[in-house]
């Protein structure tokens, strides 16, 4: 990142002073980020720091109180979520949100929604457009399933998939939209080291082969430090640090945010209590 003001087109996503309040609580406060094309951009921070809220601002779930979100140089705040998806922003969710009583392949077909054109009249009369589009989208869904390693599961109900497979299915569904930008909300949550390695590899492939820009929220520091080009740290809705993994690793404020500035006093307090308990016995 250079110091001089960059052109909008150099960044796929840019936020300017976005603020969002829930009642009296400011969940996101004056956060500015600039996400370069084809990068892996991570957002970290303790629980309740406003990371997911930030995602919800980008994908249009929440209306921001002030500030602007630019996507490819174009302001996108205030437009409905389905139109945000049409622009090429896809996302996954912290607590997996699949269409649980639909089959796996149907989930991916829903993900392709913004790229399909046939309507109800086409469907009733089985027009050429409908049949061609249906065939193409099913083929694409099969390819996507194969890409995330779920090709055997196409006709299972998505709620019956194992946990890790559900996470990958969510990514496949998001990819169905042919996204420019993919927002991944804790893709490695609840995974064992082996599974997170596979996820890291998948995310790397998304960037290197499919040329997708990725914004990542993740708690697993191993994953974050491994794959990020750039990291932003949020705490209490504010950006407290920003930079490459090396910079973040050694930032005093980040350490404090994660462990708390009064960590040592707390440790002493517990030790004292423990001793008191022993004496009482």
């Amino acid at each position, binding site marked *: 990142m250079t110091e001089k003001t960059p052109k909008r087109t150099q960044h796929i996503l840019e936020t300017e002073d976005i603020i969002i309040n829930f009642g009296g609580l400011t969940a996101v406060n004056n956060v500015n980020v600039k996400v370069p094309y084809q990068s892996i951009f991570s957002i970290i921070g303790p629980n309740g720091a406003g990371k997911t809220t930030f995602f919800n601002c980008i*994908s*249009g*779930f929440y209306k921001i109180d002030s500030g602007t979100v630019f996507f490819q140089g174009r302001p996108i705040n205030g437009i*409905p*979520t*389905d139109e*945000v*998806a*049409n622009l*090429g922003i*896809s*996302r996954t*969710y912290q607590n997996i*949100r699949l*269409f*649980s009583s*639909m*089959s796996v*392949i*149907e989930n991916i*077909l*829903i*993900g392709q*929604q*913004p790229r*399909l054109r*046939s*309507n*109800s009249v*086409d*469907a*009733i009369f*089985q027009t050429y457009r*409908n049949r061609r*589009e*249906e065939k193409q*989208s*099913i*083929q*694409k*869904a*099969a*390819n*996507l*399933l*194969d*890409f995330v390693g779920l*090709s055997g599961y*196409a*006709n299972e*109900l998505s709620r019956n998939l194992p946990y890790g497979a559900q996470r990958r299915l969510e990514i496949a*569904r998001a*990819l*169905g*939209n*042919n*996204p*420019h930008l993919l927002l991944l909300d804790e893709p490695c949550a609840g995974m064992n080291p082996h599974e997170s390695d596979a996820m890291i590899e998948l995310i790397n492939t998304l960037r290197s*082969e*499919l040329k997708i820009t990725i914004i990542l929220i993740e708690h697993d520091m191993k994953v974050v430090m491994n794959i990020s080009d750039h990291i932003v740290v949020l705490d209490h809705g504010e950006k407290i640090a920003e930079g490459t993994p090396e910079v973040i690793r050694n930032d005093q404020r980040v350490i404090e945010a994660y462990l708390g500035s009064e960590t040592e006093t707390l440790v002493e307090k517990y030790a004292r209590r423990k001793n008191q308990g022993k004496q009482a016995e």
Partner: protein
Amino acid sequence: MKNTSAVAVRKGVLTAIILIFLQLINMTAALGAMLEKMITSAKSVKSVSPLFYGVIVALVAFFIAFSFIRSLYRPGKPKPTPLYCLGESLVIGLVSGVLIAALNALISTLNANGVKIRTYLDMMAPDAIKTAAFGREIPVMIGIYLALTIAGALLGGLIAWIIKSTGQPANAWAALQRAIAENHTIRFIRRNKIVRILVIIAILIFVFALPFILSPYGISILGLVLIYAVLGLGLNLIVGLSGQLVFGFVAFYAIGAYTFALLTAPKPLGLEFSFPIAFLVALAISGLSGVIVGLPIMNLRGDYLAIVTLGFAEIIRSLVNSNLLADFTGGPQGIKDIGQPRQPGFIESLIGKPMPENIYFLYVIMIFFAVTLYIVYRLQYSRVGRSWEAMREDETVAQACGVATSYYKVLAVIIGAVIAGAAGALYASRNTYIGPGDFVFMVSVNSLAVIVVGGMGSIPGALIGAFIIKGVPELLRDLENYRMVVFGVLLIAMMIIRPEGLLPIRRKKIYAEPDKDLEILKKELKP
């Protein structure tokens, strides 16, 4: 073992409660009369004979004991001995016999002493009390009751033990299913295209012959069932697929019916259009009403939607019922002499004489049902249907996946409204008379029940549901006053046994071979 004996006592009390309840609403006698009618094939039974009354009492004890003994066979527990089974059954019979006999002894004594029991228990007329006492003295009556319940319970326990220990018929259902799955003829039918076509043709011939086989009563019931099936298919799109709770579905039905009626009836407007034109206009107007309702509710979710549509239905009903508009809608008197479709000439030249009106009309309904079925099927298994289902599953996520939820919501309401309008127009034409009484809230409830019973979002479910909601009550006519009680019990039982509906929605299997080529995927994923 001591524990299960306590359970047996409890089951005995349960049996007694059921018996007492049945007796107090006088249903034992009604069921007995029904049984007597079936077995002796008498046209009508005025007062049930003690034999059949007793059989019903014994049957209740039989079923309770049967299910209790069956439940003793659990994996991991020792198998009960036959003597033990009989003992437990005896306990059930004894307990229930004592309790029911005590009740009857009490009632009979009170009756003999001149207390008018009827003032407290509506159904307990002196005649009914006499029937319940088998027309005997109290000690004899107690003996009869004990004998009946004990015999019933012992028999139930014995049969349960035989079934469970031989294990033969117990798995009969599973065995039957396995047999069907493995049976070569059925597999042959499924696999072989020509045979499959022949089977479909045979079914079609049967369906086409059906109106000629049925009695006039059967024809009228089948017509009503099919109209409700159409209604159910329409509501299925809105509630079952797109997941929006619409309570006032009757509004669209009424709008279709009234539009059609006003356009074809000589009074009050005197337009007398022909069937096809009036039908098309009815579809258009009900579609328009769908737009009118759909647009304001576009951004409502869940409960609000239910309330808004409920209000809309009431407005429509009040409008057609009001005296103010009586010159235009017929008011409380309704509309008479609604037009019917004219038979095309070729039918007469084909079979020599005009087809009876009711049979012809059943064919008309069948055709419309088939057309609706086709449209709904095509929509459901397309991009549109999938979007609706995604909205039902999780509206927020569906929208974030790019489903234009507002558009699809209104679309579902409009298509559902058009289908309901078609059902209404058919109903009006079939009845030749409609009034405000035909479009009460119960119609909405019934059409909801159709899809809940059949299975939300399932197309064959709507047909089965319509048959159960509209057809079964007619089959139960023999039960007279208890018809709706039995119907209610059936519905409750069904929802407990199959909460997802009788024929739950089936996911269509979608197969495609992946290309296994990253380059193709890259091309496909180019934004």
